[in-house]
């Protein structure tokens, strides 16, 4: 059932075209019911009943340890609920937001596949299976970013996202395989139980950095962050779903999931803290430079991703708890804000924050949701974001590798967070009314219901944190190696911790943020003027490597694919010659070849006839003569088969020779006469090359036959073909029984050849623009 629930998105994607036959509106509503029912399923079946640690397993490729193992633990449940919950809001929202879009059906296909693969990532216990889902999210993200594929910029961004996350995924695969080499295990649950073995291995650092390569590209850490702001080309619901609430958290998910195996290693904590910290600060600064609402939100998402990475890097149970709370809070408020941004875009026609203001008169419901989300983002008191920020400060104040520097960075980033919250969600709705075109309008019920609910959940969780407290504590023990029970049971969330340092710091952040917002005009003017030198930006490096790649592809194609068949074949033959003769003369002993083989007179005659006919074909000047001589070669090859115990082959060869002759008779006069185009020097050159290859082949055969032939297979078939295959002709039993799947493939190839002949001949000249 768990497996089915994970894959249901893919099943739905297959049904979308048929559902759309009933009309766009009903179809989109029906499809939107899927994430909703999944959400309820996960909530009631796992969340409320506490049925956690439930697993399902199906053997897939046991020989390599790759099996469909799915586990639903507390940590996975948090993600599963975010994925399906935000998914529900997004699916409903899109049915209105993209109602007029001609490719609405495609949109639902892509996003359903995405949802399924995201659920796959968080529930797979097997690392290879998780990797497959990981790749699927990259692909569906590519399709969704490039959704407006007629625009150059969309295509560019889609490619960028795919290439960056795709190459990271390759690193991740290598990392998974290295972990397999170290431990011999393929499941997270097994790997996480042996941190000692992993961290003492010489392959530990390569494995760790490769895994991080995957996680950092996916979660857009510096210096791989640049694809995320560009991914804002996607339709807004996609940005809300993939590029803020779920997909970009896959990297965070992975880092925490594999944390027990790496936990305690100084390299692991240092790397995560440094990269997380840099990403956090850089993104917060970049957010202030933007004017596009969606780009501001993208950079604040980046900043949060940095925070989450940093928290995993700090690595204490408290930091893990903070990470989870911050993650849930972020999914709720950022999902809301993106959907609100879409509603503003829909209602006013612009997303430029300089052009809008005071929209609360026109969009009151949206304004309430946006305010709640902004308060959560800024960490204002009764909201869930406040709890997140308190925990964040507490975790950063704990003793860690970088001392108070960590706290300073966290504090700065949180301060920027307050400012960004004001810019993106407060000022568009308050102050003087300002809008570019016609009167803005409120979003429809299908649109706002989703984000209103997510916004109020932020308030609800803030007021009643015990709803999530228990599950978060359990999730911490899922991602922390050997968490003492006492620590786990003492973890609870509360809104009010009394008057202490952390509360004071929180209030200071808020106050300072408000002060900055008051002087924002001047500050923004300065910040927008400071530009980093272009060559320092990692995205320049991306552009450069892409153009180098294309240029080198062009160059190699130009050199290798020069249009002369003769050159290609010559190159292949020379390579073959060099490689074969190199290994023949260095690794093997040519003296094993025995030149003594008993030969009878008729064998010499057969060999002579084949040789003479071959020479005749090569030397002949007439086509008919060549066809006849070629037929003789074929017939005598068949004779060889029949002498040496292969009557089936002989019969097949005879019939084929007959058919070949008929074929040639039919077309021979349509074919051009034999012409001598090549120069004499070319002919000599080719002759020597071909002879050298021929000689190598002869030596190769003699080398192979001089060695002992392994007999296991022959014996196996000889023993079982009558008893198991019920046939006395072993060759036929192999063809139709033991290796029938191969034969099936071969007759399919044959059928394609026949269809190819048909298609080629029926293709009329003028169909292709010739003549």
């Amino acid at each position, binding site marked *: 059932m768990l497996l089915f629930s994970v894959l249901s998105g893919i099943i739905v994607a297959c049904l979308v075209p048929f559902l759309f036959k009933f009309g766009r509106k009903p179809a989109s509503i029906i499809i939107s019911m899927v994430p909703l029912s999944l959400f309820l399923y996960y909530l009631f079946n796992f969340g409320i009943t506490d049925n956690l640690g439930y697993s399902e397993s199906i053997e897939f490729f046991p020989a390599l340890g790759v099996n469909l193992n799915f586990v639903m633990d507390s940590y996975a449940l948090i993600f599963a609920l975010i994925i399906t919950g935000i998914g529900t809001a997004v699916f409903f929202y899109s049915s209105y937001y993209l109602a007029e879009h001609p490719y609405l059906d495609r949109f639902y296909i892509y996003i359903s596949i995405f949802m399924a693969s995201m659920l796959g990532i968080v529930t797979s216990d097997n690392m290879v299976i998780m990797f497959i889902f990981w790749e699927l999210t990259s692909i569906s993200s590519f399709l969704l970013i490039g959704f407006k594929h007629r625009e150059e910029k969309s295509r560019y961004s889609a490619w960028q996202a795919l290439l960056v996350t795709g190459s990271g995924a390759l690193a991740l695969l290598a990392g998974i395989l290295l972990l397999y080499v170290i431990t011999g295990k393929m499941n997270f649950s097994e790997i996480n139980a042996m941190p000692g073995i992993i961290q003492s291995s010489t392959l530990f650092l390569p494995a760790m950095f490769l895994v991080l390569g995957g996680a950092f590209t996916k979660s857009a850490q510096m210096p791989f962050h640049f694809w995320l702001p560009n991914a804002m080309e996607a339709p807004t619901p996609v940005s809300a779903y993939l590029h803020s609430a779920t997909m970009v958290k896959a990297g965070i998910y992975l880092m925490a999931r594999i944390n027990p195996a790496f936990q305690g290693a100084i390299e692991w904590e240092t790397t995560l803290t440094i990269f997380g910290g840099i990403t956090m600060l850089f993104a917060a600064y970049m957010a202030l430079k933007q004017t596009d609402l969606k780009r501001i939100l993208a950079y604040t998402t980046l900043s949060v991703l940095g925070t989450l990475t940093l928290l995993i890097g700090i690595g204490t149970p408290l930091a893990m708890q903070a990470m989870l709370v911050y993650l849930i809070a972020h999914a709720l408020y950022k999902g809301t804000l993106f959907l609100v941004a879409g509603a503003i875009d829909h209602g006013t026609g612009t997303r430029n924050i300089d052009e809008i203001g005071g929209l609360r008169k026109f969009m009151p419901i949206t304004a309430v949701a946006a305010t709640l989300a902004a308060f959560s983002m800024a960490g204002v008191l009764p909201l869930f974001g406040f709890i997140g920020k308190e925990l964040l400060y507490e975790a950063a104040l704990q003793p860690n590798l970088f001392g108070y520097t960590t706290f300073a960075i966290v504090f700065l980033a949180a301060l920027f967070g307050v400012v960004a919250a004001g810019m993106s969600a407060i000022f568009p709705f308050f102050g003087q009314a300002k809008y570019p075109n016609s009167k803005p309008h409120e979003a429809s019920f299908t649109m706002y219901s989703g984000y209103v609910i997510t916004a109020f959940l932020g308030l609800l969780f803030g007021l009643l944190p015990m709803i999530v407290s228990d599950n978060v504590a359990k999730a911490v023990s899922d991602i922390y190696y050997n968490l003492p029970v006492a620590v786990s049971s003492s973890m609870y969330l509360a809104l009010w911790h009394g008057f202490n340092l952390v509360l004071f710091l929180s209030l200071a952040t808020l106050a300072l943020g408000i002060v900055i917002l008051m002087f924002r005009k001047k500050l923004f003017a300065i910040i927008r003027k400071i530009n980093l030198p272009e060559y320092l930006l990692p995205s320049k490096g991306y552009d450069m490597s892409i153009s180098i790649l294309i240029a080198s592809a062009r160059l190699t194609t130009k050199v290798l694919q020069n249009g002369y068949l003769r050159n290609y074949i010559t190159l292949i033959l020379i390579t073959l010659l060099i490689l074969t003769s190199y290994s023949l003369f260095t690794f093997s002993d040519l003296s094993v070849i025995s030149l003594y083989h008993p030969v009878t007179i008729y064998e010499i005659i057969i060999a002579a006839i084949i040789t003479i006919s071959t020479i005749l074909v090569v030397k002949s000047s007439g086509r008919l003569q060549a066809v006849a001589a070629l037929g003789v070669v074929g017939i005598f090859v068949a004779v060889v088969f029949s002498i040496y115990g292969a009557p089936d082959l002989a019969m097949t060869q005879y019939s084929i020779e007959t058919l070949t002759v008929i074929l040639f008779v039919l077309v021979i006069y349509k074919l051009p006469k034999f012409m001598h185009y090549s120069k004499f020097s070319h002919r000599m050159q080719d002759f020597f090359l071909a002879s050298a290859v021929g000689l190598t082949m002869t030596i190769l055969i003699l080398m192979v036959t001089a060695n002992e032939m392994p007999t296991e297979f022959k014996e196996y078939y000889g023993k079982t073909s009558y008893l198991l295959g019920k046939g006395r*002709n072993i060759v036929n039993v192999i063809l139709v*029984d033991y290796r029938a799947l191969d034969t099936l493939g071969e*007759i399919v190839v044959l059928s394609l050849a026949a269809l190819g002949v048909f298609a080629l001949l029926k293709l009329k000249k003028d169909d292709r623009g010739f003549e």
Partner: protein
Amino acid sequence: MKSIILQTATRYLLPMLLLFSFFLLFRGHNSPGGGFVGGLVASAAYALYSIAFGVEEAKKLLRIEPVYLIATGLMLALFSGMIAFFSFDTFMTAKWSDLNFPLFGKLGTPLLFDLGVYIVVIGITLKILFTISEEVKP
């Protein structure tokens, strides 16, 4: 190519060759033969007929468009592999009936598979020959 001798001979050869091809097909499991050879012999018979009487006559005699033969053969081969599903075995597991038939010996899914191969081979050979000779004629 109208030759009385060839035409007369072909009239007798065709049924004999077809019969021979069936013989090759069905005894293939125990003696030389099988679907590939049988199919080739059968298509050689039709090719001979088309040389003697022309392609149009050969097509008329065959009655079925060769592409349908290809499709039928492939489906048959695929289906023979799927019979194993009925007893929850993996694809292509051979199933045999316990009865012994005169002439064929035991009947089983590999024989059905070979029949599929036989039909595919006839289909592709004739499709190729007919297409090419049609292209050449007009």
